[in-house]
């Protein structure tokens, strides 16, 4: 199947600083690709280049609409920028119509679609209000409507959940899924890893402009050699032998519970069998580390650094 969006060796520098460094990825029709990375990793610059807002330094960006390859057709793409903003002194409906008309939607159709979407977000009664009169959450919804009103085939969502309360995060998730079900191809940049894991089939992780990890969520997790193991004992047990097991590092230890990281060369099953033979266990949980930890660990293993300190602390 031809990918709807294909990015090949994309690079961009600002002055002497290379902000995006030869990244390549593909998104198939109806897929959601999660673009992940700390602040300043190059996500927004990459999205702006894909949107044609910034011109690439080098590399190619190709779209495939109905079997035809084209470099850019802005009318078929929706964009929710990280830096939110609309005309605060203009009416909600007027703004939505203007933005849809700019994308090539006929005025009458734009009015109909705008009212439908406003109704869906329970904002129909605010259609004639100036945007400045709306709450921040309502403004975010209007911005989302502006992104999808012209029925785009590809949607770029840059940090769509930032600033939203949990209830609205759920609502946005629901609408993103609806878009996907309609066949829309979505590129989603976000730092809420749990939300990304819920929504995305494929992940592209970026740090300092370079690709760190790329593939399906399952692939990325299975490729990562690390396991997090939680052991719960029925009563106090002597588990000191674990400290000497190769590849084991204890993360947390209570009288009846231990959490450890296993990065050994042997299969995890061998460690579990050994455990079962040495101590009595009430509960064993084995899981792959969260995406965030995988990202930070991979960057460390490559001998690179993460510029955003707050991002490392989340690990």
């Amino acid at each position, binding site marked *: 199947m031809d990918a709807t969006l294909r990015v090949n060796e994309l*690079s*961009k*520098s*600002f*002055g002497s600083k*290379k*902000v995006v460094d030869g990244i390549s990825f593909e998104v198939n029709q109806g897929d959601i690709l999660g673009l992940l990375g700390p602040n300043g990793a190059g996500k927004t610059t990459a999205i*702006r280049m894909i*949107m*044609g*807002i*910034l*011109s*690439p*330094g080098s590399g190619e960006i190709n779209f495939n609409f109905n079997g035809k390859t084209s470099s850019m057709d*802005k*009318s078929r*793409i929706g*964009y929710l*920028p990280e*830096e*939110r*903003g*609309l*005309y*605060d002194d*203009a009416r909600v409906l*007027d703004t939505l119509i*203007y*933005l849809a*008309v*700019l*994308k090539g939607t006929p005025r009458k159709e734009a009015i109909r679609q705008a009212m439908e979407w406003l109704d869906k977000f329970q904002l129909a009664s605010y259609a004639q209000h100036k945007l400045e009169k709306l709450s921040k959450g309502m403004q975010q919804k209007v911005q989302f409507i*502006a992104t999808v009103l012209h029925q785009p085939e590809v949607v770029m969502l840059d940090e769509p959940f930032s600033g939203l309360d949990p209830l609205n995060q759920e609502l946005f998730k629901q609408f993103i899924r609806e878009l996907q079900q309609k066949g829309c191809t979505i590129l989603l940049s976000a730092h809420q890893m749990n939300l990304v894991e819920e929504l995305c089939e494929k992940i592209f992780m970026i740090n300092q402009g370079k690709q760190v990890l790329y593939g399906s969520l399952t692939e990325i997790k299975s490729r990562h050699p690390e396991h997090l193991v939680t052991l719960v004992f029925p009563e106090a047990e002597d588990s000191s032998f674990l400290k000497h097991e190769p590849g084991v590092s204890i993360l947390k230890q209570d009288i009846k519970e231990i959490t450890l990281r296993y990065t050994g060369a042997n299969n995890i099953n061998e460690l579990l069998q050994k455990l079962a033979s040495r101590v009595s266990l009430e509960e064993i949980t084995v899981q792959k580390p969260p995406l965030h930890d995988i990202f930070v660990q991979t960057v460390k293993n490559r001998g690179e650094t993460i510029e955003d300190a707050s991002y490392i602390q989340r690990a």
Partner: protein
Amino acid sequence: MKTPAISSVLKVARWEFVKNIKSPVFLVLTFVVPLIMVIVGGIGFFAERMSSEEELSLGVADSTEEFFTYLEAHLEGAPLNLTPVEKSTEHFKEMIQEEDLDAILLVEAEGIETGNMPLYMEDVRDVNLGEAKSVIDNAVVSYRMEQKGLDPGEIQAATSPVNLETRTVTGEEPEMVDFIVPLVAGMALIFSVLFSGQILMYGVIKEKRNRVVEILLSSISSLELMLGKIAGFGALSLCQIGIWLGSGVIVIFSFAVMPPIPLTIGQVILPVLFFIFGFLMLSSIFAAVGATMKEAEGGSQAQGMVILIPMVPIFLATPLLMEPNALWARILSHVPPFIPTTVLLRMGGTTLPLWEVASTLVVLLLSTVLFIYLGARIFEGTILQYDRPVGLKDLQVMFGKKKG
């Protein structure tokens, strides 16, 4: 840079026009500011008229004992009240106060001969001589002539004023409209750029500040956005001028201030062309400057500097109108940012040769295209720089180096 799509330009232009024509800033600039200007101008006009119509009370201390009658004979309805007073300079102050005089003219035979006649006032700043000087002048000239033996009929014939009937070499009488239209277009250009250009620049700064620009650029190119804005504000400006001209015409016809002036396309086309291209060029500079600003405060400082561009020829208006064909005026007419205003002012002072109209128009056209292109480049290169204003270094990077 890709060729802009006209439909996108028109969509932006329509939005800017509809959005801004209802804005309080536009309404204030279109109706309130000109009204204030008319009121202030009207007050000045009427004050001057009232002061010129005010009668001057002039005491005459005549030692010749005949000049007073000459003066009376030359009053011819001038607002001047003559009172004979004693020739006693030490009592002039009391006389002025007691007789309620504005001034006292001391007339002596020697003064009439040499032309040096003392005029005493309590405070020279309080007295407007108005027509008094010409009345005294005429009376002195007549008196001198009569002293030389000329009779009154000969004196009247010798002093009757000359009326210069100006004509072109082809024999046509010069038309007022040839002077007025370019000057009106020049003033309209200044006001349009001052008013619409200001809203345009703040609009760009605002779009940058509230981040709308990123959404717009995800639909259209920076060149289309910039052209659309300039076109929208151009239409807004024409609408504004239409309102002013319309109001002016109504006032002229209603109060019969002056007779209607017949206009031909030939008299209007060149000033209008210079106005349109001048507006486009200056607006592109305003939009580009707005794109480099972070906040409106910075914009207002920069605007003060940019506004000087069309104003420079205005500071030189008098020499431009007096010497429209001077070498410096011709050079200034070919320096891009000053072309429209300089040429329009010169057109008010002379008929420019065809080659000069053509050369200035060509330079204006080329520089308009160049400024729009440069403006769009700056617009594109700096509009996403939200966190700080754009410096010279940024512009150097933008134009000096290849894209990253």
